[in-house]
């Protein structure tokens, strides 16, 4: 079903894609159950730990737009994540040599009386203040559980202020309780950008690639790769300007480092403006980068240039890769990441010669908006050996139990607040914080050497694990890790 840009809110991933947060079984089983014509029912939990919500994912993108402002219509706690967003903002600005500046966000500080009489007056003040303080080119209004439940008329307030605030003011529907899949917040942000910022193309830019990512640490690397193909990357959304976002429709192609992040935006640009979206597996590791570059090459008619580039990159990294595989012989790992990374890192670790015992995915999209299963999981499931696979919204009690049973040499994770628990168990934990970790041939090799370092000196983790206790009862370690997951028989 095509993405509908005529409505205010992007439907949640559960509604649109049948996405799930509860499953325990195997990789091949999951792929079979979510293949063409099949459907899977989400498994509910009778015990759970703090997850994350859509609003955090929406704000992390929108607060990064350099000349926009965010009005977070919520009690003050909903802006708790803005501290981290500002750290990421300062970090990104520093590496771009842009100078020191804080994110442009105000919280409307909803209080008890607002939940009784409505919070629209606060919202009006928030929009006015954001406009006065930052002179932004656009204002995004992010909603919250409180504003959603009391039913504040966001649209009404925005339309009243049209004359007074002469820039686009756009509603971003990201109430936490609406979706268990925090990535629904990415879609909420992209939906707002697509409906309120993106303009039809005035001209076509055959060299321009929309590069959908988070912080963009690999800008130089990507500029070099694309340069050899005669292409120029434009990194979105964080650190882009409103004008750059307005003209994404003029690009030759859209690519992404994370298909969980970029698929909604890429698909919408393809459907509405004919900008092809590269539907390849994510660009991590050899198979990833090669499929991804070929996808870009095919979209812009640069197939032979891509092959020449691939040969060059391979030649530069083959020897290192062989050495890394030798060192990792016999090493076993568990991984826990968002779906795009969980899927692509199955390939990455295979290329490094590390055996994956179990993979946990923080949610799972049975298909993307363009109608197909995620290609990376289809590829991973085509291997001969099956592995156990679970889906959970970062449920650490399940992960901890699984790790204490499997006792892997390594735990690879993504998302703050997950890898430290493996370290407390004495397992070498390698967090994949930067989205470009293991990106491309050279990134794969760098990642491999980072793992070598982590395995070379285990003093910190072993000594830590000897002295700390995790917060679980002895009883829990004797139970099946998915004992509280209520699902159809696997």
């Amino acid at each position: 079903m095509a993405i509908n840009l005529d409505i205010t809110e992007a439907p949640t991933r559960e509604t649109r894609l049948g996405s799930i947060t509860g499953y325990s079984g195997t990789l091949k089983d999951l792929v079979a159950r979510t293949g063409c014509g099949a459907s899977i029912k989400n498994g509910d939990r009778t015990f759970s730990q703090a997850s994350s919500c859509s609003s955090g994912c929406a704000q992390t993108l929108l607060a990064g737009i350099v000349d926009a402002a965010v009005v977070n219509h919520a009690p003050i706690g909903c802006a708790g994540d803005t501290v981290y967003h500002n750290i990421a903002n300062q970090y990104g600005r520093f590496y771009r040599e842009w100078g020191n500046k804080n994110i442009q966000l105000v919280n409307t500080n909803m209080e008890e009386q607002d939940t009784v009489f409505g919070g629209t007056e606060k919202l009006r003040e928030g929009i006015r203040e954001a406009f006065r303080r930052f002179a932004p080119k656009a204002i995004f209004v992010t909603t919250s559980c409180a504003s959603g439940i009391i039913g504040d008329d966001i649209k009404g307030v925005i339309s009243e202020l049209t004359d007074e605030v002469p820039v686009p003011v756009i509603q971003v529907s990201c109430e936490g309780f609406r979706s268990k899949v925090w990535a629904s917040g990415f879609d909420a942000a992209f939906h707002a950008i697509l409906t309120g910022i993106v303009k039809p193309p005035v001209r076509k830019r055959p060299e321009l690639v929309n590069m959908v990512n988070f912080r963009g640490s690999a800008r130089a690397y990507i500029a070099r790769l694309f340069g050899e193909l005669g292409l120029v990357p434009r990194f979105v959304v964080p650190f882009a300007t409103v004008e750059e976002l307005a003209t994404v429709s003029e690009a030759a192609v859209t690519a992404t480092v994370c298909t969980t992040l970029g698929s909604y935006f890429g698909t919408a640009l393809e459907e509405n403006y004919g900008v092809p979206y590269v539907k390849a597996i994510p660009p991590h590791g050899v198979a990833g980068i090669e499929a991804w570059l070929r996808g870009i090459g095919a979209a812009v008619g640069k197939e032979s240039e891509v092959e020449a580039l691939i040969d060059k990159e391979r030649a530069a990294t083959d020897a290192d890769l062989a050495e890394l595989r030798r060192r990792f012989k016999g090493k076993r790992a568990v991984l826990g990441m968002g779906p795009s990374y969980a899927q692509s890192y199955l390939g990455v670790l295979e290329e490094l010669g590390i055996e994956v015992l179990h993979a946990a995915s923080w949610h799972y999209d049975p298909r993307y908006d363009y109608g197909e299963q995620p290609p990376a999981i289809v590829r991973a499931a085509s291997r001969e050996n099956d592995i156990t696979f679970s889906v959970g919204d970062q449920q650490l009690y399940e992960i901890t139990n699984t790790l204490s049973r499997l006792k892997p040499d390594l735990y690879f994770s993504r998302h703050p607040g997950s890898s430290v628990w493996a370290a407390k168990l004495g397992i070498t934990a390698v967090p994949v914080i930067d989205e470009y970790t293991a990106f491309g041939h050279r990134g794969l090799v760098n990642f491999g050497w980072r793992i070598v370092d982590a395995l070379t000196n285990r003093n910190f983790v072993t000594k830590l694990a000897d002295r700390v206790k995790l917060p679980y009862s002895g009883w829990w370690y004797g139970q099946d890790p998915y004992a509280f997951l209520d699902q159809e028989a696997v």
Partner: protein
Amino acid sequence: MAGVIEQIRNVCALGALQSVVAIERAIPIIHAGPGCGQKLWSGLSNGNGFQGAGYVGGHSVPCTNATEQEVVFGGEEKLRETVANTLKVMDGDLFVILTGCTSDIVGDDVGEVARSFRSSGAPVVYVETGGFKGDNYFGHELLWDALIDQFLEPAGKAEPGLVNLFSVLPYQDPYWTGTLHTIAGLLRSIGLIPNVIYGPGEGVASLRKVPKAQFNLLLSPWVGLKTVQRLEEKFGTPYLHYPTLPIGATETGKFLRAVGVQAGIPSETVEEAIRREEARYYYYVERSADLLFETRFLPGHFVTVADSFYALGLTKFLINDLGLIPEVQFVTEAVPEQYRPLIDAEFARFDEGLVSPVHYGADGGTVRDELARRTFRERPLILGSSWDRVTARKLNGYPLSVAMPVSDRLVLSRTYAGYEGALRLTEDIYSVILSSFQ
């Protein structure tokens, strides 16, 4: 009606969950939407001195992760199920249900859920901390109301010398652990037995001891006044309210003398402890005097942007001990109207007859505008949060992050309280100045 807030300096009432995390072997159970725990932990702990998850923080906190189902049909059953399974899975001695906006707006009867577990012998208490009710200072006091009403038991006879220490907010103050440890050391130095509830120590066991104290010490401008008053009503425990966080010789001496009087400790004992500490302290202060009087590297007027604990405590030290001149101080938490005169009075009575203007409010934009319209003749010293570093640079000032969010420093056991803390603060301030050009 409070205005909008740019650059948060605290979180909502549900932030009290971090006060539970600070009590060893106490386990919070969040009954709220899926993002509350992550956002509050991220703001108060991870982005604030990188304080970590600890025993049961971050994503390990049990949570109902409420969805549309619980919002439309009520969340009591989901909560009951989550608490029942928490008691099986998690290893703790006290379980505190904290509610968020979803539950408080739809009106779940959380009290009934908690009572049903308590009646079967499980140590489960509840507190309704919907984010719209107030900030986390307010939430922290609500938590204590709940602990007093639902958990603490009368102790019979008071234990002589035992003092409960109530002061800075765990996690909100990135220096809380070191600060409580230091204050406890000061109390020990005059022969008292401090009962420190938060941080490394006895955790829930010290909480249970609260009703046995000889008196409660509230070291805070206003936060916790309600708590010690309730403890007095319920257990008959008297309290000493000392409003200023003691930093440096002047205030720490006054503090120890006040505590000595309350505790009935002979003044010779207190004076001896002060003499001993001051001798050591002034050995280092004397060493610092050469830098302070014989170099060009000095700050101009100072500004603090912090909660009332630190705005007041730092200002007293900087004026009364370090001899600096105040420009304006910003108090960032929501101070209830009735306590403002008390704080205003403190800001109007420094040594040498000095006073400092004080400004109330959490909005960073107001701080920025207020500072932009002032004239600084020398490079100002700006003790605030990491947000304020941007403003400090614009003003060509010297920034030092002391208040939430402190995202540019790792904080472990550091404190600015007492004698040792004042030396640390002096080192930190002048290190910022000296490293600014080399």
